[in-house]
C-alpha cells in the first residue's frame, strides 16, 4: 500500500478460522458503527432512520434498480482497475476522472467521424489510447523529473474537463441541436448493444473480462510478478536488475487505458453524446472502490457493485424520505472511513 504509514504487516501466527472470524467481526463492527452514526445524523435531520433505511433496501431490490446498479457499476469497475494496476507498481492514480473523460472524448471523436460497423471497435481502441495517453503524461513526469503522480493526475483531471468542455461548446457542438453544449448523438451502429430485454449494455461484459484479465496478469504472468516486486520494494527491484522505470510506465499506461475504456463504454452504452458532467465522479468513486478492496482485482469488482448500489439506493433517501441528495455521500463517506480505518487491526 503506497501511502500507509505502516511498515508491511507481520501476520500474527493465529489459527486460520479464528483469524477469519475476527476479521468478519471487525468488518461487521466497523460497518455497524458507520450505520449507527448515519442514523444519528438522520435523527438530527428529523427523519426516521428505520423507515429511511428500510425504504432504501426495499427500493434497491427491484428489477429496475438492480439493472441500474449494473449500469452504474460498469464504468466503476473499469476505472477501479485503473487504480488497482498502478497501485501494484506502487503508484497512486487519482486521475481516473480525467482519464475517463479523455477516453470518452477520444471515443466520441472517432464516433463522430467513422461510420458503420468499424466505428465501435475503433472507438473502444481510441478511448483506451486516450486514457493511456493522459495517464502517460503523469507517468512520464514521474519518471523524467520525479514529480509525484498523485498530484499530477489530480491536476490533469481538471485539464481534461476543460478539454472536453472546449470541444463540446465549440468545435464539436451539435449544430442541429437546441443550443445545448453536446455533440450529436452516436449512430446506432456505434452504440453498445443491450442485453436482451434490459437496460444493461454489453459494457459490463467488457468490464468483467477486463477485471479477470487484470487478476490473471497480476497473478499468473511474470509481468504481474515483476510489477508487484517494484511495488513492494523498488530499491530491491532495481538491485535485482528489473527495468523499474519501464514497469512503472507500462502499469500506468495500462491503467489509463482501462480508465479510458470506462469513459468510452459509458458513452457508447448509456449517454451516446459527449456532454458536461458525463462522468460525475466516476474516477473518484472508483479510486475508493479499489481501496475498499485493498487493490485485489476480484474483490474490487464487488466493491464497485457495492458503491454503485449505495448510489442507486441513495435515490430512495430523496424520493421516499425527502432528505437532501447529498445524504448518500455522508453514508458513503462513513462506510468508507469505517472500512479503511476500522475493518482490521491497526499494526503499530
Amino acid at each position, binding site marked *: 500500500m503506497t501511502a500507509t504509514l505502516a511498515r508491511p504487516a507481520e501476520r500474527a501466527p493465529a489459527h486460520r478460522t479464528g483469524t477469519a472470524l475476527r476479521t468478519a467481526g471487525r468488518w461487521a463492527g466497523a460497518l455497524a458503527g458507520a450505520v449507527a452514526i448515519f442514523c444519528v445524523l438522520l435523527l438530527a435531520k428529523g427523519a426516521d432512520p428505520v423507515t429511511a433505511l428500510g425504504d432504501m433496501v426495499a427500493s434497491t431490490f427491484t428489477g429496475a434498480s438492480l439493472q441500474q446498479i449494473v*449500469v452504474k457499476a460498469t464504468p466503476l469497475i473499469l476505472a477501479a482497475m485503473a487504480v488497482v494496476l498502478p497501485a501494484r507498481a506502487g503508484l497512486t492514480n487519482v486521475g481516473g476522472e480525467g482519464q475517463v473523460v479523455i477516453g470518452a472524448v477520444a471515443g466520441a471523436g472517432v464516433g463522430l467521424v467513422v461510420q458503420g460497423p468499424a466505428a465501435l471497435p475503433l472507438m473502444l481502441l481510441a478511448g483506451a489510447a486516450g486514457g493511456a495517453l493522459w495517464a502517460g503524461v503523469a507517468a512520464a513526469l514521474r519518471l523524467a523529473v520525479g514529480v509525484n503522480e498523485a498530484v499530477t493526475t489530480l491536476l490533469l483531471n481538471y485539464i481534461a474537463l476543460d478539454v472536453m468542455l472546449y470541444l463540446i461548446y465549440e468545435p464539436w457542438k451539435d449544430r442541429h441541436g437546441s443550443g445545448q453544449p453536446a455533440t450529436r448523438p452516436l449512430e446506432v451502429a456505434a452504440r453498445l448493444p443491450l442485453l436482451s430485454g434490459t*437496460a444493461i449494455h454489453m459494457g459490463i461484459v467488457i468490464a468483467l473480462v477486463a477485471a479477470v484479465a487484470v487478476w490473471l496478469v497480476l497473478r499468473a504472468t511474470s509481468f504481474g510478478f515483476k510489477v508487484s516486486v517494484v511495488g513492494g520494494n523498488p530499491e530491491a527491484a532495481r538491485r535485482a536488475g528489473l527495468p523499474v522505470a519501464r514497469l512503472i510506465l507500462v502499469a500506468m499506461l495500462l491503467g489509463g487505458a482501462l480508465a479510458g475504456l470506462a469513459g468510452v463504454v459509458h458513452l457508447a452504452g448509456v449517454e451516446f453524446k459527449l456532454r458536461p458532467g458525463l462522468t460525475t465522479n466516476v474516477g473518484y468513486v472508483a479510486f475508493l472502490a479499489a481501496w475498499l478492496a485493498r487493490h485485489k482485482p476480484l474483490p474490487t469488482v464487488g466493491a464497485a457493485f457495492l458503491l454503485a448500489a449505495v448510489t442507486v439506493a441513495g435515490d430512495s433517501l430523496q424520493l421516499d424520505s425527502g432528505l*437532501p*441528495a447529498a445524504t448518500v455521500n455522508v453514508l458513503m463517506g462513513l462506510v468508507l472511513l469505517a472500512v479503511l480505518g476500522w475493518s482490521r487491526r491497526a499494526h503499530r
Partner: protein
Amino acid sequence: MRKIITGAALAVLATACSANTAGTATPASGGTVVPGKGSTAVGFIFVGPKDDYGYNQAAYQGSQEVAKAFPNLKVITAENVPEDDNAARVMNSMIAKGAKIVFATSYGHLDAALKVAAEHPDVVVVQQGNLITGSAPPNAGTFFGTVYEPVYLAGIAAGRATKTGKLGYVYAFPISQTIDNIDAFELGARSVNPSVKTYAVNTSSWCDPAKQAEAAANLLKQGVDVITQHQDCTATVIKATEAAGAMTVGYHADASAIAPKGWLTGSQWNWGPLYSDIVRTALGGTFTGSKYNGNFRVGYKTGDNPFVQSPYGPLVDDKTRRLIEAAKDTLKSGSPFAGPVRDQEGKVRIPDGTTPDYETIEKIDYFVEGVVGSLPKS
C-alpha cells in the same frame, strides 16, 4: 470476505440480468394508452439543490403549489439530479412509485426526458426550458416562459439608471437562453439610452460564488454601475454590487432585501399556475394533442408568462415606470427582438419590420450591437 463480496456481486448481476424489464410498463398492444391519466403521483427533478435561492428553488416552490392544488396527488421531488443518464434513472424510480406525470426542470434534462417518455408511453414527461427538435412524442413536451421579455423590461430600468453608460452581465455558459437574455437586456437598455453598453463576463459555472465575486469586482472596477446575472445562485454578485454602491437587476428571485439601496427591478419565477395546468391537463387524459404536447412557450403575447417582473426599488423613477409599462404593452403584440436587430459587427440579423417567433429567438447565437464580449465560435 473477498469471496462474500464477489459472490454478492455475481448474485446482483444474475438477478439483474434475469429480471425482465420490471417497472417498464409495456403499452397494451392495440389498445390506446392515455398518458398521465389516473396518476397518483407527480415527480419533479431539479438539477441543483432545491434551496439554491434561484432557479431550482423556484421550480421546487412550483412543485409545492402543485401539492397544494392537488391534495390527492403525492408529489415526489429529487434535487441535484445531473444532466445525464442519472436523470433517466431517477425519473424511472419516480414512475415506479406511481408517478405518471414527470417534470424534468433543467435545460440539460431533455435527452433523459425523451428517453423516459419513449420507454413509458403511459407517462407524461415534460421538460422545462429546452426545445424538442422535430416532432414531439404523444406523451412529451417542453414548456417555458419567454424569459428574455422581463429581462428586456429590466434592461430599460438599467439603461435609464446608469450614470456611466456601462452595464454588467455575469453569466455561466453561452447557451441560447443566456444569449437571449444578454441580448434582450442590452436591447431594452438601448431603447432608452442608445449609447449604453453591456459588458458580459462568464464564470463557466452555474454557481461558483468565488468566481462570481471576482467577476463582479472586475466589472465594478471598469466603471460598470448596474450588474445583472444569469447564475443559479445569485447572492454573491448582488451583495458585491450593493457593497460597492452600484445598482442591481435581479434574476430568479426577488432579492431586494439584500440590496435595499441599489435594487432596481428584476425577473422572477411563478411556476405554480403553469405546473398545475399541465398536471390538470394530464390527469384529465387530454395531454396528447394539447398545447403542452410540443414546445409550449408563453410570453406577454400569449398569456401569463411564468417569468414575471420583480418589484421596483427606490431608484426607479416614475418616468421609467411609465416607459416600462409602455414597452410591456408593445410586447403584447411584438417582441424585444423586433427588427432591425444588428449584431456586434453591425450586420442586420433581423430585418426591419420582422418580428421573429419564439423558436427563432431561442436559436439566436450572436451578441447584438452594444454587447461587449465575445462568444465561442461553433
